[in-house]
């Protein structure tokens, strides 16, 4: 997966490049709008991450140009909080998503993966499996080691999200947004409680733990335990 990151702030650019590279993407970093514009128009990427505020050619211009050129490459905008109108303008111009600075890297990673998944053909399956955990999607049923596990509707949705994106760290805000459609920074520890209750049903009685807390970032579902 090839990503183009256009970011003029040196440190942010470096860390975005490093983080995304380490997450398994091929990252091209442009440090100004002109280079970014040129690269976006001449090469093929799977996703663009654009800072709106660029000194020369701003993010909007780049989106406009590639959309006019008929390219459907997904675009993720990075905007400053003090210009909320940017998000409207960005989305109108054809951006697919936006993140407000300061943002958590885990959040960015999760959004990038969501966008890349959106642009690829979704895999329709009836069943998902991680180790001995089996999800029966049409019937909203979960089984582990052959034992049926009783889950509420939202608990099943939460588990489904974790399984679908296994191996990814999912920030609390993304979980709240995807499972409950709550698109704001919440003061509450609702997600932690929900995960704890899900864990009690999925993991507590079993030797192999599937759900892991990634401190300061979020949660992930994974077979082998790397963190903690």
């Amino acid at each position: 997966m090839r990503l183009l990151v256009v970011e003029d702030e040196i440190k942010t650019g470096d860390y975005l490049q490093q983080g995304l590279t380490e997450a398994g993407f091929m990252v091209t970093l442009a440090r100004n709008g002109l280079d970014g514009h040129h690269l976006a128009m001449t090469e093929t990427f799977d996703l663009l991450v654009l800072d709106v505020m660029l000194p020369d050619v701003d993010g909007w211009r780049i989106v406009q140009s590639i959309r006019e050129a008929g390219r459907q490459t997904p675009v993720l905008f990075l905007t400053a909080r003090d210009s909320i109108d940017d998000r409207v303008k960005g989305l109108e111009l054809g951006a697919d998503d936006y993140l407000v600075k300061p943002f958590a890297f885990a959040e960015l990673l999760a959004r990038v993966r969501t966008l890349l998944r959106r642009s690829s053909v979704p895999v329709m399956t009836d069943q998902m499996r991680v180790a001995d955990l089996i999800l029966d999607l049409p019937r909203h049923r979960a089984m582990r080691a052959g034992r049926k596990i009783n889950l509420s509707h939202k608990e099943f949705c939460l588990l489904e999200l974790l399984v679908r994106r296994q191996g990814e760290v999912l920030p609390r805000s993304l979980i709240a947004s995807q499972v409950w459609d709550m698109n704001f920074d919440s003061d509450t520890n609702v997600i932690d409680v929900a995960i704890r209750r899900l864990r009690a049903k999925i993991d507590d009685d079993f030797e192999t733990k599937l759900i892991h807390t990634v401190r300061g970032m979020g949660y992930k579902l994974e077979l082998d335990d790397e963190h903690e």
Partner: protein
Amino acid sequence: MNSRLGKHPLSLTTRVMTFVALAIGLSLLGIGYLVNSAVEHHFAEQDADELEVMTRAVDRALRKTSDGYSRLDEALSHAVSGHHGVYFQVWDKEQRLIYGPSTDDYLTPVGSFAPVSRIQVNNQYQWQAEGKTYRGVITQTQVGCFEYIIVAAIDMDAHLQFLKNFRRSLWLIMILAGTVTLLATWYGVHQGHAPLRGLSGTMREIQADRLHVRLEPDGVPRELQQLVTSFNDMIGRLEDSFVRLTHFSADIAHELRTPLTNIITQTQVVLGKSRGLVEYRELHYSNLEELERLAKMVNDMLWLAQSEHGLLKPVWESLGMAQEVRKLFDFFEALAEEKHIQLMLEGQAPKIKGDRAMLRRAMSNLLSNAIRHSPEGESVKVRLDVSDEGQVLLSVQNTGPEIPAEHLPRIFDRFYRVDPSRQRQSEGAGLGLAIVKSIVEAHYGSIDVSSDYGMTSFSICFPQAAINWDCEEGALP
């Protein structure tokens, strides 16, 4: 500062003076006119009497001497003796002068005016001859078989001279009286404004550090009491905002200091000597948590700053509040169940126009507060209602310890905490309720809190204007 470029309102003194000058001027002119015409009328009446007496005397003389011309002359020459400045002529029917000075000298020819039957003020004639002004009457009389026309006239120059002098004095008096009245008015107005100048002096002394100064409403005239009260109220609000702002800066510093101290201390301690990978990782995790907290606080503060500058722009859509509340109940289900708290929705309301994400955020803050402060096993209630004025009311209620009354007025302030010792636990930076308020206000609504009899209730009132009556959710009661 527009007024400097455009029309500057007239000064109060100018206004009062203009009105007074107009009123005084008009009434003095009226009085002057009346006095003048009264005097003129009086003279005219006097002249009429005199002329009548003369005419009668002439008439009498004519009747006594109805027998011949020779005695007529004699009789007529004595007829008006004792009168000064008077003249008369007697004419016969064929308009021949029988007696009196010739027409060329001072009397007008009979033919110019018609004779009158009775002498009155308003049928006297005035004319000028030889540089003098005369007033006179013309009458007809029948003596035997003769018909005479009598012309009697008075030299009125003396009267006119008197009137001229009289008018001059009248003007002088009027101008003098007007000027004195205006000066007195000006002085009165100036004196009347003295309390205003006093107030202005007191106000000038009020600086940022002296906002506690209040004006004394009893020390000013009744007309200014309302102004003083309003001013005091304004200063009160300013003082309040100022105090809040001062606290706010102190609070920000305090809120930022704690996580920063944690980060700096921890990092310095860990870097103090060489450590294992696990310890370094632990440091980063810990720092990350503090930094996330800082980032969230900065985001919340920027949100509030935007709301203060009116930059929160709701994306309006039609929202069924009951449906939204149920969605939030779904979200808080796990948290509530952990504390064995029941979430209940009562009542219904028509749809309102609002920003879905913002309103969810506001209600989420209220619900999480309610769940946090509700004792285990109790219930948290959301009530939907419609006021008599058609406003949609939403209240979030929880039982449990009451919020002391002295905290209620400030509970929506940024960083305000009812219990200062409970900072930095699960409840964030104390910005939650401030954010709720900012969202409600962006929806042109109002929010209120009450806490008594073991029940705390936050009530949001959405103004009628936000209600979209077209699409109702559930029937109205």
